[in-house]
C-alpha cells in the first residue's frame, strides 16, 4: 500500500485496473463480485427486493434470519432511531418461516446467503433440509440476536451448544457456513476459536448489542420489548476491535459488520482484517445509493494506494 497525499474523492479515476477485478473477493470458497453484503434483517424477506438490491450494487445478499416456523415478532415500535446514525431494534426475529421463505427464493438467481436461527439444536437440520437444494451460496447462522429469549445470543453464549450446532449443520451441507457473533457474555475470542475448531467456514462480527431507550416524557421504555439491540455508528469502534482481534486469532475469514456508513468505515474494517463487510443501518440513513457510493470510494482509495485488489489490504493493520 502506498502512503500518499490527496483525498480519494478528489482523485480522478485512472482506470488502470478494472474496478470489477479490484473489488472481487473469495469468501470461504465463494467468489463474489465485491465485498459488500447486505446485513441480515435489512429488507431481507422478498426475492424481488433481493434482485433490486443486487442490481443496486451489492456483492451478495444475506436474508433475514429465518426460523423453522413463522414469527410475527414484537409489536411496534420495533425500530427506534437514536438520531446520530444509531438505531435500536427489537423486531423479535419476525420472519415468514422456512416453508414460505424456501418458496419465496425457489427461483433465486442472485448470490444469496440464507441466515438461519433456531431455538434448539434440532431446528437446524430442519432448516438445512429446506434450503440446501435451492440455488443459494451458503448459510449465516445467527447466534447473536441479543433480544429474543432462547434464540440467538442465548445460544451463542453456550460454547458447547455452539460446537454441537456447527457440527450438526456441517454434517448436513456442503455449502459454506458462516457464524455470526456478537457481544454477549462469552469471550468473543474464545468463541471464535471454538467456531473455527468446530469446522465453520467464516465468522461475521458483530451483531447488535443489547441496549435500551427510555422516553423521558412518559418514563416508559420505547421498544415494545423494552430491551433491544444497538446498531449503526455507535457500534463501529467495537465491531472494528472484534474483527481485528478475531482475525488475528483465527484463520477462517471474518466478515465485518456494525456501523459501516461510508467507504472509510468499510476500509477501516478491511484494514482490521475483514475479508468482506455487511451493510445494514446505513440503508435507513443513506438509502440504497449507499452501496455504489461506498464501492466508488473503495475503488478510488485502492487506486490511490496503488493496490490491484482489495485483497491486498485485508488485515493490514495487524502489522503495526
Amino acid at each position, binding site marked *: 500500500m502506498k502512503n500518499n497525499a490527496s483525498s480519494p474523492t478528489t482523485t480522478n479515476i485512472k482506470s488502470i485496473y478494472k474496478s470489477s477485478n479490484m473489488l472481487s473477493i473469495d469468501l470461504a470458497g465463494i467468489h463474489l463480485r465485491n465485498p459488500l453484503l447486505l446485513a441480515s*434483517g435489512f*429488507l431481507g424477506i422478498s426475492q424481488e427486493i433481493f434482485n433490486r438490491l443486487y442490481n443496486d450494487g451489492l456483492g451478495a445478499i444475506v436474508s433475514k434470519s429465518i426460523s423453522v416456523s413463522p414469527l410475527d415478532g414484537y409489536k411496534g415500535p420495533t*425500530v*427506534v432511531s*437514536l438520531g446520530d446514525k444509531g438505531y435500536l431494534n427489537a*423486531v423479535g426475529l419476525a420472519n415468514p418461516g422456512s416453508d414460505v421463505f424456501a418458496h419465496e427464493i425457489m427461483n433465486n438467481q442472485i448470490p444469496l446467503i440464507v441466515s438461519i436461527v433456531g431455538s434448539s439444536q434440532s431446528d437446524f437440520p430442519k432448516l438445512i433440509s429446506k434450503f440446501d437444494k435451492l440455488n443459494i451460496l451458503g448459510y449465516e447462522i445467527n447466534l447473536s440476536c441479543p433480544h429474543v429469549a432462547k434464540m440467538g445470543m442465548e445460544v451463542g453464549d453456550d460454547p458447547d451448544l455452539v460446537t454441537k450446532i456447527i457440527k450438526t449443520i456441517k454434517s448436513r451441507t456442503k455449502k459454506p457456513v458462516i457464524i455470526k457473533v456478537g457481544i454477549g457474555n462469552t469471550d468473543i475470542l474464545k468463541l471464535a476459536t471454538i467456531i473455527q475448531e468446530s469446522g465453520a467456514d467464516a465468522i461475521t462480527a458483530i451483531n447488535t448489542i443489547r441496549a435500551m431507550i427510555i422516553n423521558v416524557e412518559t418514563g416508559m421504555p420505547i421498544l415494545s420489548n423494552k430491551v433491544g439491540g444497538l446498531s449503526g455508528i455507535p457500534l463501529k469502534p467495537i465491531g472494528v476491535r472484534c474483527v481485528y482481534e478475531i482475525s488475528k486469532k483465527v484463520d477462517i475469514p471474518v466478515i465485518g459488520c456494525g456501523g459501516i456508513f461510508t467507504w472509510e468505515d468499510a476500509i477501516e474494517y478491511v484494514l482490521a482484517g475483514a475479508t468482506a463487510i455487511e451493510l445494514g443501518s446505513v440503508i*435507513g440513513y443513506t438509502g440504497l445509493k449507499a452501496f455504489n457510493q461506498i464501492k466508488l470510494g473503495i475503488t478510488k482509495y485502492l487506486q490511490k494506494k496503488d493496490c490491484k485488489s482489495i485483497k491486498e489490504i485485508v488485515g493490514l493493520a495487524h502489522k503495526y
Partner: protein
Amino acid sequence: MVLHTNIDKIRMVVIEEVIEETPSVKTFVFDDMLSSNAKPGQFLMIWIPRVEELPMSVMISNKKNHAAITIRKHGFGSTSLFEKKQNDQIGVRGPYGNYFSISKDVKRPLLVGGGTGLVPLMRLATLISKIQERCTIIMGAQTQKEVLFKDLAEEILSKIRTKIIVTTEDGSYGIKGVVTDALKYILKKEQFDMIYTCGPELMMVSIYNLSVTHSIPIQASLERYMKCGIGICASCCINDKLVCKDGTVFNDNQLSKMSEFGKVFRDKSGRPSNYSFN
C-alpha cells in the same frame, strides 16, 4: 417550542384538540412544525406508548405549526389510539414517504377516496385550492353517519369551482353505491387530467382499471404493513418497491408493473397472502 431537525427521532406531542368526525373516526390536533409542513400523501409513525406504533397519514390543521391525525377505530392499536384524550401525549416521527405531485397543468383534478384514505386528499385539496380553478372529489362511506370530511372539503375548496360527490353503500346519503359507481358515471360525462386516490386497495384497483380504460393518468397512495417507515425492514414491500420509501404514492406506470397490486400483501411475519375479493 422545540426545534426538531431529525425526523426519525420520536417527538412527544400533546393532543390539544379532539374532533369527533364520525362515531368511529376522530381527529387529534397537535403542535408539530415538521408534520405541519408535510406534503399530501406523506405519513407519520405514531407511537402509542406501551401499545403500538402505527402509520397514519398527516391530516391538516388550520392552526399555525400544527398538524393532525385522523384515526378510524379498528383493532387493538387503533382503538387504543382512538381512546386517547385531550392533553394525552403521543409520539410522532416523520413525515415519511413521497407525495402526490400537483402542477398548474393539472387543470381538472379528480380526487377519489374512501374512509381515512380521504386524509391525504384533504391536504391535497388545500394545495389545489391555491393553484387551480376547479376540483372534483368523490368520497365514499358505508352510511350517512360515517361520511367523512364533506363539510371540511367544501370549506377548503370554497373559493374555487368544486363538485363534491358522496356515495354511501346503504344509500342513506348521496349516491347509493361505492365510489367506483360514481366514478364510472362521471368519467363518461366529464374530462379529467389526473386522478388522485387513496383508500382500500381493492377500491384503488378498480379506480386504476377505470383510469386505464379512460386513459387518465393516476396517482394512488398505497397502504402496506409498516414496521420501520424508513426503508429498512421490507415489511411494506409490494413487488420490488418499498411503500414507505418509494411510495406511498405510485403513478400509473409504476402501478402497471405491480403484479401484487390488489393481489398480494404481506403480514407481520412477511408471509404473502392474497386479497380476497368478496
